[in-house]
Structures are given as structure tokens and as C-alpha cells.
């Protein structure tokens, strides 16, 4: 069941859907994150730039003392939070500002260098990341303006975690939804498939389940059920017609037979000539009766009823028994009849019907193969069933006729003296179908090779 689920189209669909959802969420949240992050740093940079410009203007007006005064006032006043200033001489010696010493090795190369400063806060030592910009003033002094970006960093960190977990959660949600969806879908489709198989296997009264949720599955099931109802109704009508016809034919046949049989008991005994004609008529009656019986059997097999209570049938054993039964007849005709079978080649089915199937195939072969030929019955196990092959080296059936061979009343020139009802292979086909099997006629090069595959 599990392995099968991964092979379903519903699963493939939901896997694709999950991937798509993951990608869409990742792109949306990722670009929001990147955009926000750049917005925050852009704002910081703008503030730093503005302050640098105003300090540079002050320097131009009143030199180092003016800038020192300005910086001190900026530090003392309640200016912006986390602002960092420093004015040094060309040797990086501090002149003014709230940083104790030059944080870089010489002049930083980046436009927006970052560094860390340690601050003493009540009870603990903290390290704050700072983003800064450095300008060389016309006198060779250096001016540094920066901002504590730990807030922004923390925000970005939180945003990143939120983004990633957002992507993760939506992937999980999509995957779960997809799994549930494909599980439900494959369960409902599976129900339909199983029901159809059971109907085919001889439970014509079974119907597709309707969940009552009025969804498209219910609509489909209801339509299929209506089709099945109609088919069953038609099959029922057909069967009733067939049954009553068969019964109506049997009753007069029965009367005729009894009447003629009673005639033979006549005393004093009938004249030999009369007796002979009655016996000849009885033989014709026998043939008629056999054809009728075969037709009835085909109808029965097609109706699926005989498999209402299937049992395990060892096809190999059955083949051995029937080959043994027919061997003397084959020998009398100068034919070799052999059997090759694997042990425990069993299927669920009706033993009598499978015996009839084999009998018809063997009888056919014995009928058509000329003296000196050979007929072989082989039973082989397949992974999920049994393969039964009856092959001979007789005249075979021309390729263009093979597909017609299983149809009722189609017969190919039977050898002189052999009667053929034209129903033998039809019955074989009906019995194979009843067992959900497959009948195939092929060339045995030369001869005929009949293959019947029966599921276990």
C-alpha cells in the first residue's frame, strides 16, 4: 500500500504542488527579507551621511575646535540612540568623541566599515556592532560617524528566522495537504478499482461506493452505478430469455428422448431396421443435446455465477489427470500426448470448468493433428498466476483466422469423420474470461499454440 502510494499520479501531482508552494513562499518571503534589510541599512547610511556632511561643514567654518564642540554637544544631548562619533588626528589619536580608540587597523578600505565596541551596561558587558563612515578632513584629521546597528541586526535575525520557518511550515503544510490529498484520492480510486475487479470476478450485484459528499467522485460513482444497473438489467433479461429458451428446448428434447428410449424397450422386440433408425436418431439427439449443453455452459460462464464460490485448483495436477485420461485415445490415433508441469501451480477457480477448458483444448488438438503428430500440455507458474499451454504440430490456424477462432459457431475445416460444434473454443474463451484469464492463439511453427494465462 505504502510503496503503491508513491507510484500514484495523485502523489506525483501533490509532490509537484508542494515544490511549487515552497518555491513561491521562498521567493515572496526571501525578497521581503532582502528588501527590508536593505531599507534598514539605507536609512542608517543616510543618517550617517547627513551627520558627516553637517560636521564637515562645521569643520570648514570653525576647524577642529568647532567640530569637537559639536561632537561633544551631540554626545551630551539626547540625540539619536546608539550614535558613535570620533575625531582623530592623522595618526589616529583621539581628539574628541565617544569611542576610546581608533577601531580599525589604519584607514578602512570599505565605504561602510563595521566594527564592534564594548560597553558596560548595568550588570553585564555587551558588545555592540557599529556601522560607520570615515572622512579625511582637509587638515588631515579623520572624522568617524557611526551607528549601533545591533537593533537592526536583531530585527534582521528575527526576520530571517521568521522567513525560514515560514518557508518550512508552508512546505510542511503543502506536503501534508498533498499527502492527505493523494492518500484520499488513491483510496477512493482504489475503492473504485477494487469494486470493478470484484464485479468482473463474478459479483455483478456490487456497486461503487458513494460517500455522500456530493463531490465529483460521487457523481462519477453514481453514473458508473447507473451504467452497471443497466448492464445487469440487460444481462438479467438476456439470461432469463436464455434460461427459458433452454428450458423450453430441453423439455421437448427430454420428452422426445424418453419416448424413443421407451420405444426401444418394446416387446416383442422391434425389427432390426426400425431399431437401427431409432438408434441413429438418438445419436443425432445426443449431438443436439451436447450443443445445447455447451451453449448453456458458455452462458453460465459468461454470467459469472459459477465463480461465486471458487476453490483452489491445482492446474498442474488437473493437466496430469486429463492427459492421462486422453493418452489412450491419442495413442489409438497414433499421436503422442505429453504433459509438462510445475508443482503447486494453483489458481482460484472452478475445477469442473477448468477441466472442461483443458478437455476442449486437448480434444481440439487430437481432432486436428494428423497421425504421427504430437500434442503437449504444459503448466508453468507465473509470478502472479499460472500459464497453461496446449501446443501441437498439426496444421494450426492461419494468422488471419486466429482472432475469429474464439467466436461461437466459427469452425475451420474439420478432418473427415470429425464432428465439430464450433463452440469448443468459445467455451474455452468464456471459462478463461470467467477466471479473469487471457486466451491467446499463436503459431507453434508449425502447429497451434494455445496459451491461457490465469491469475492466481
Amino acid at each position, binding site marked *: 500500500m505504502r510503496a503503491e502510494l508513491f507510484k500514484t499520479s495523485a502523489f506525483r501531482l501533490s509532490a509537484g504542488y508542494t515544490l511549487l508552494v515552497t518555491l513561491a513562499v521562498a521567493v515572496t518571503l526571501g525578497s521581503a527579507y532582502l528588501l527590508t534589510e536593505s531599507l534598514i541599512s539605507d536609512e542608517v547610511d543616510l543618517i550617517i551621511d547627513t551627520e558627516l556632511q553637517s560636521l564637515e561643514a562645521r569643520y570648514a567654518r570653525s576647524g577642529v575646535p568647532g567640530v569637537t564642540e559639536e561632537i561633544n554637544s551631540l554626545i551630551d544631548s539626547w540625540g539619536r540612540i546608539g550614535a558613535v562619533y570620533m575625531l582623530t588626528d592623522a595618526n589616529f589619536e583621539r581628539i574628541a568623541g565617544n569611542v576610546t580608540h581608533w577601531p580599525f587597523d589604519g584607514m578602512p578600505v570599505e565605504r561602510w566599515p563595521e566594527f564592534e565596541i564594548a560597553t558596560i551596561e548595568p550588570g553585564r558587558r555587551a558588545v555592540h556592532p557599529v556601522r560607520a563612515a570615515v572622512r579625511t578632513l582637509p587638515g588631515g584629521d579623520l572624522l568617524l560617524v557611526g551607528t549601533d546597528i545591533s537593533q537592526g541586526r536583531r530585527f534582521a535575525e528575527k526576520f530571517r528566522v521568521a522567513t525560514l520557518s515560514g518557508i518550512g511550515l508552508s512546505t510542511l503544510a503543502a506536503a501534508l495537504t498533498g499527502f492527505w490529498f493523494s492518500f484520499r484520492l488513491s483510496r477512493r480510486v482504489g475503492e473504485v478499482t477494487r469494486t470493478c475487479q470484484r464485479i468482473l470476478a463474478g459479483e455483478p450485484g456490487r456497486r461503487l461506493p458513494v460517500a455522500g459528499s456530493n463531490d465529483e467522485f460521487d457523481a462519477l460513482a453514481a453514473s458508473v452505478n447507473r451504467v452497471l444497473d443497466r448492464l445487469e438489467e440487460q444481462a438479467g433479461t438476456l439470461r432469463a430469455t436464455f434460461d427459458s429458451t433452454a428450458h423450453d428446448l430441453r423439455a421437448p428434447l*427430454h420428452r422426445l428422448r*424418453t419416448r424413443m*428410449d*421407451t420405444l426401444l424397450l418394446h416387446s416383442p422386440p422391434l425389427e432390426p431396421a426400425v431399431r437401427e433408425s431409432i438408434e441413429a436418431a438418438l445419436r443425432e439427439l445426443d449431438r443436439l443435446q451436447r450443443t445445447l*449443453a455447451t451453449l448453456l455452459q458458455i452462458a453460465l460462464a459468461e454470467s459469472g455465477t459459477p465463480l461465486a464460490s471458487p476453490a483452489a485448483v491445482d492446474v498442474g495436477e488437473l493437466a496430469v489427470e486429463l492427459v492421462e*485420461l486422453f493418452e489412450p485415445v491419442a495413442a489409438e490415433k497414433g499421436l503422442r500426448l505429453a504433459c509438462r508441469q510445475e508443482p503447486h501451480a494453483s489458481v482460484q477457480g*472452478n475445477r469442473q470448468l477448468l477441466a472442461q477448458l483443458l478437455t476442449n483444448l486437448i480434444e481440439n488438438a487430437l481432432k486436428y493433428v494428423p497421425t504421427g503428430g504430437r500434442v503437449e500440455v504444459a503448466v508453468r507458474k507465473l509470478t502472479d498466476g499460472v500459464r497453461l499451454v496446449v501446443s501441437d504440430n498439426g496444421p494450426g490456424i492461419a494468422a488471419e483466422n486466429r482472432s475469429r477462432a474464439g467466436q461461437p459457431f466459427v469452425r475451420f475445416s474439420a478432418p473427415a469423420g470429425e464432428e465439430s460444434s464450433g463452440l469448443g473454443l468459445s467455451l474455452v474463451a468464456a471459462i478463461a474470461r470467467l477466471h479473469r484469464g487471457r486466451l491467446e492463439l499463436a503459431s507453434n511453427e508449425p502447429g497451434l499454440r494455445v496459451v491461457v494465462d490465469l491469475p492466481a
Partner: protein
Amino acid sequence: MRRGHAQDASAGTPTPDWQVRLLCGSVQLLLIEDDTEAARFLVKGLRESGFGVEHAADGRDGLSRALEGQFDIIVTDRMLPHLDGLGIIERLRARGIGTPVLVLSALGSVDDRVRGLKSGGDDYLTKPFALAELLARIEALLRRGAGGAHSTRLKVEDLEFDLLARRVTRAGQEVELTSRELKLLEFLMRRAGQVVTRTMLLEGVWDLHFDPQSNLIDVHISRLRQAIDRGSDHPLIHTVRGSGYVLRSDA
């Protein structure tokens, strides 16, 4: 045929001398059949074969006659007005009446057959059938319970079958037979003196409930005959024209 019904057939156990009674017309048979024309000829045929026959045309009448009369065997149609054949058997068995019952039916499937036998019928015959087939089966049912079912040796004249050792001798000489030929011979010997049809042999020896077209049984019998009767002045296996075979001494 495959069901040992002998033990509960006490009420209608056929006496071993039933053949004598048959000759005197004292074997009583009840035929329950709603097809009156078919019944007329069947009754005629059965009477000419030596049976005392009573006919009932529907299920209810059939049941009351079966309950009142002393019959050795009942032949009933499967589908009858008022009460069907299987219903009759059920009611008879419920009252402890074990008279052998042969069910006739126009339904021919194997499953119908199985259901017929399961519900207590002793044999099942599909219409239309040859009168010879019906007679052979009636004979088989009448004989059942009379033979020594538990003996380990079968003997017909100088033909002996040791059932335990699966050994057959004819006039003291061992006869080589295949296991299927042994089964066939056992079937014939257990019914020695009784006509056995080809259909009965297919059912009893091969468990096949349909008639193949070939002359299968004839070939098997002729092989058995070769083994048993070759070189003997007293052939034991005889062909009965239009019926089947019988194993008996000629004397």
C-alpha cells in the same frame, strides 16, 4: 455416488434380493414430475423395466405420497409446482425417512448439482437423459448399502482385488494395472452385476461432471479388458448396448 449414504438409509434399505423383486414388479418407485407427457413415457419405460411406479404431478402431492407409501426409491424433478424437489428431500430427511432420492433437473450447472447433492439428494441427473442412464443410476442407488462397503477384498469369480495392497489377480495370476486402471476396476467390481454408464464412470473415477466428445471411456475399458480378460475363456467385462458396461461372470 461419492457420498456414503448407506448408514442413514435404514428406512428404505433395499433388500439384497431386489433384482428378484424387480422381476416380480415389487420394487416400488415414486416419480414426481410435473411435465405430464414426459412422465407418461417415463412411467411406461420404468414399468417395462420392471418397477412398480406411482406418479405425482406436483411437489405437495409428491411429498404426501412419499410420506404415506413404502417406496424403495424416489425420482423427483428439481423444479415443481408448490414444493420443489430439494424441499421434498429436506422434509423427508427431517422426518427420518432415508429413502434414496434421485433428482432430475433441467438446470445443468455443476453448482446446481452440488447444491442438489448437498441438500440430501443421493444422485443428480440432468435432463434430457437417456432412459438407460436413469435405470443404471436407480440400480446403483438401490444396490447401495447392500454391498460390503467395508470389505478389504473384492472378488468376482476368479478375479480378486486386494484393496489394501492394491493388488489384482486373475486365476491366481497377478495383473499389472496403473493406479487409474485400479480405480476403474474397483468401481466396476464394487458394482459387479450392475450396469455402469460412461457418465457414471467419468464422475466416479475421474470426478468429471461433463461429457467429453471422445470415446474416452471405451478406450480405457478396452485397455482394462486387455489386462483382465485376455486369454481367458470367461470374459468378465461386458458391453451393454446403448447403456454402458457391466462386470459379471457369464454363468
